[in-house]
Structures are given as C-alpha cells and as structure tokens.
C-alpha cells in the first residue's frame, strides 16, 4: 500500500512527535509499504497564522497514495478519501488550556474567534477520518469531551529498543528531554537543593528558550549545585543516552500535563530503571505506578527530593521497580506489529 504520513513541523525543531512520525514512516516501509513522510510547517505567531496554517493544510494535494495517516493539528486537515488518524495533538490552547496560564491565544474577540474556528474545523474535519486512534487515554478523553468523537488508544512504541540495557545503579538520576518550561527541568534543579543523599542529577537536552536556560543556570549557581547537577546541553547520541539510562539509579520525568507517557518513560523501562514523575504530569501515570514501577511525587521540590532520596537509598528496590516497569510495558503490547496492523487495516 502507498501511504503518506502527514505531520506538521517547525523546521530545525525535533521532539517526540517528529521522532514518532519518522519512526512510523520507517516501520511502514519495513512492513512492506511504500511510505513517505509529509511535513507541513506550522506557525502560531501571530495567532492569525494559525488559521493560515489550517487552510494551507486543507488546500494541499498529496502525491497519489492509497492511504493517509494524519498525526497532528493542523496537518490532519489534509484531504484524502482514505484517511486514518493517529492523533497526537489537537491545538490544546483552544480546548483544555483555554482559560489557563498556558492559553497562548489572546482572550480578545480575535482570540475567541480563532479558538472557535479551531473547534469548528476539528468538529467538521476530524470526522473525515475513517478511524481515529490516539496516543493516550488523555487525548481520547479530551476528544470525547470537547468534540464528542470516539477514538481508540494506540500506544506509541520506541523505534528501536535493542541498545537499551541495565548495567548498574549508580548514584544519579537521569532526565533527558528537550529543555523548556513545560518539561520543568528548573523544578528538577530546585529539588536537588533538598536531596540529602550524595547523588547527582544529570540533565540532557538542548534548551528551546534562552530565558528558561538562564533560569536553570542561575538556579544551579545560586543554590551552589554545580557539582551535583550536570547539564549535557549539546545533542547526545542515542547510544550516549542509552548508556546514561544503563547506569542511572532511575529516571526523573516531571513534565506538566503531558498527553502521552513520553518516550523517556518507555526508554527508562526498557533499561529496567524506575521513573519518578509528578501527580500533574498527565499521561505518565499509564506506566508510572507509585511504589510499583517508580514514584509519583507532588509537583514541588521537597516532595520530588524525598522520592529521589528514597530511590537512591534502596538500590535493590530500584532494581525491582525497574523490572516491574519493563514487565508492564511488555504486557501492554506496545509494539510496532500492533501499530502497523491497526493503521493499515
């Protein structure tokens, strides 16, 4: 089957969704399909640009393919008679983030108009799809609540798990991720002030916002954490990342209200390492079961520090929780076999 995977993009920026789109395209080819990845740039500043991007996606014509798999807003508006969605993102600023600090859109008449246009377009065009899968129960619930559309959860697997291993439980927790306010690396650094054990925090990831980078740097300096917090700011290879996972006592992953469990969580469990997350981290709670596969802390430095101490103090327990996480992932059938079968039948 000829298949186009359609995603939006911001040139020069790569994150979990881009990784997933690339992985899906490669896997479709491995499973015998002719697959292409179509990336359509998305701009949201100024907010009127959002409507431009929506219309552009609706007007593009794809090369001749048998099926389209749409992933993110607004790329999933692209027209095709045989379209299925693996919905990773709606435009949350028009939905659950409206009225919060993360609203993004102005509250003006123009902002309300954009919000309503997004909702109306979703209500109309999401129904073009023959089937809608989502990346998590959080995304499915939001789709049902705001658009009254049913969907099925299709858990996103890792592209490759063969390089993950468990070699040791050294005295550090590892937090690899894009660095931004939503991922809350600053909260991770502030937590280290309260960690009593001699362990370290290793952050890995490039900053996306110079102001946030400065806040993190300042916190490390102000709290004199230079010898306890290491920030690998340049790109690290997949193998380097796997090596850190392999030697860490556990993983810290404390984003704010993510839809999915996050690749970091999955990578940690394939390395048989427990994960510390927060009660408000969203989809991570699918895999992180408190005291079973990791720890679920309150989103404040003292609570997170207490769980880091607990993790570092008992390595045999950390090992058992990491193994439980690995067993859970295996039991949930988070595999490409399942994903490709679902998206191509």
């Amino acid at each position, binding site marked *: 089957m000829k298949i*186009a995977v359609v995603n939006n*993009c*911001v*040139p*020069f*920026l790569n994150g979990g969704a881009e990784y997933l789109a690339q992985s899906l395209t490669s896997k479709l080819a491995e499973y015998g399909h*002719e697959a*292409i990845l*179509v*990336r*359509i*740039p998305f*701009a949201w*500043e100024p907010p009127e*640009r959002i409507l*431009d*991007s929506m*219309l*552009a*996606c609706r*007007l*593009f*014509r*794809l*090369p*001749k393919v048998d099926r389209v798999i749409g992933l993110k807003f607004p790329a999933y508006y692209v027209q095709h008679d045989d379209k299925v969605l693996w919905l990773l993102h709606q435009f949350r600023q028009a939905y659950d983030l409206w009225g919060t600090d993360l609203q993004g859109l102005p509250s003006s008449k123009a902002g309300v108009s954009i919000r309503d246009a997004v909702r109306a377009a979703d209500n109309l065009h999401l129904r073009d799809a023959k089937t809608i899968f989502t990346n998590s129960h959080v995304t499915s619930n939001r789709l049902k609540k705001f658009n009254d559309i049913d969907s099925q959860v299709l858990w996103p697997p890792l592209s490759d798990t063969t390089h993950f291993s468990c070699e040791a439980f050294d005295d550090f927790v590892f937090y690899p991720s894009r660095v931004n306010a939503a991922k809350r690396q600053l909260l991770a650094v502030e937590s280290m002030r309260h960690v009593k054990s001699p362990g370290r925090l290793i952050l890995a990831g490039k900053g996306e916002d110079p102001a946030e980078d400065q806040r993190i740097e300042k916190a490390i300096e102000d709290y004199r954490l230079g010898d306890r917090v290491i920030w690998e700011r340049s790109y690290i290879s997949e193998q380097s990342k796997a090596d850190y996972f392999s030697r860490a006592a556990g993983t810290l992953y404390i984003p704010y209200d993510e839809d999915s469990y996050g690749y970091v969580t999955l990578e940690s469990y394939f390395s048989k390492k427990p994960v510390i997350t927060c009660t408000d981290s969203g989809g991570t709670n699918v895999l992180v079961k408190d005291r079973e596969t990791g720890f679920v802390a309150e989103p404040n430095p003292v609570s997170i520090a207490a769980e880091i101490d607990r993790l570092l103090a008992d390595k045999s327990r950390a090992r058992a929780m990491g193994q439980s996480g690995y067993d859970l992932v295996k039991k949930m059938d988070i595999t490409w076999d399942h994903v490709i079968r679902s998206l191509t039948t």
Partner: protein
Amino acid sequence: MKVLVIGRLCPDNPCIAAFTNTLVVGLQNHGHAAETLLLPFDPEAPLLEQAMAARLLDVSGSADRMVAINAPFHLVQHPHKILWLVEGLEMDGWVWDADSAAALRSSSDQAEFALLEHADRIAFAEARHVFCDPGAARSSFGSRYGRNADVLVPGPYLEAAGHPSGQTEQEIAVWNEIASQLTS
C-alpha cells in the same frame, strides 16, 4: 545561519531529494545549519488551490534564509527568500511549463492563468536574489518577471541520500561555492 531549502515532494522522482539533500550537505559544510522541506504538489490537481496553500505558509520564524527550488514553493513567505530555478528538477505542471501553460490558456477559465502569473510576479519581486541553472536561464525567467537572474550551475548530486562520503573533494568544493553564493 539557519537555511531552509524548500522544494517539491516527488516520491517518483528521487532526483529532487538527492539534489536538496546534497545542497543541504553543501550548506552544512559551509558552516550553516541547513534542513530540507519537501512539500506536496500534484500537477494534475487545481493549481490555484495549491498556490494558495504555498502562499499561506510563512517560515520567517524558523530560518534566517529560505532557498526555494522552483514553483510553487517560491510563493512561501520569508523575508530573505532566494529563488533557484533548476530546469532539471520538475518544473512541469506550472505556468512556466509550455504544455501546462497551453492547457491553461485554452481552458475556459483563463483568469486562473492570469492569477498564477500574478502570483509568480509577487514571488519574483519579493525574492532577495534569483538564480537560474543554464536551462532555466535560456527560458529567460528573470526578464519575464523583471528580475536579473544570475546563472548558478548545480554541482553533481548523489542519486540516493546525498551522503557526503560519496562526494569527491572537487564535488564538495563545487557545492561549497554554491552554498557561498546562496548565503552571501
């Protein structure tokens, strides 16, 4: 600087991907961050809609410079846009192509042809620089739209992924010079 190279996504013609990938490698060798963005275009589908789709895209915030290869993505908005018209790479299906132009002119809706030519004039007018390969130069694109166009000859490009390991030092030097001209 960050340079975004934009062209058509043509799964049946690997030359475009090979060309843009090789160009990106040349730009990277020249010290820039460079990325390819190949966008869908169907010459048999309505052109005006696709022209509008291209025009609605604005990549100003993502890159310092945009290099557009051929139509219709010369219409994408960027304050520092460079056009490079390469006859060897899928120029068909647009008003520049004799068959397409003839079909449009003979159609009942000649307004479409006029609108697409108007869009072309806008894209040429807002480009900071227009380059043509020798084939495109013979078609006098620059003068048709009132712009000077410098001849820029593509270096050899790899048929597959554009991986630099397959390039000779001489080929790398050619692409470095091209990168220099596109980013000067």
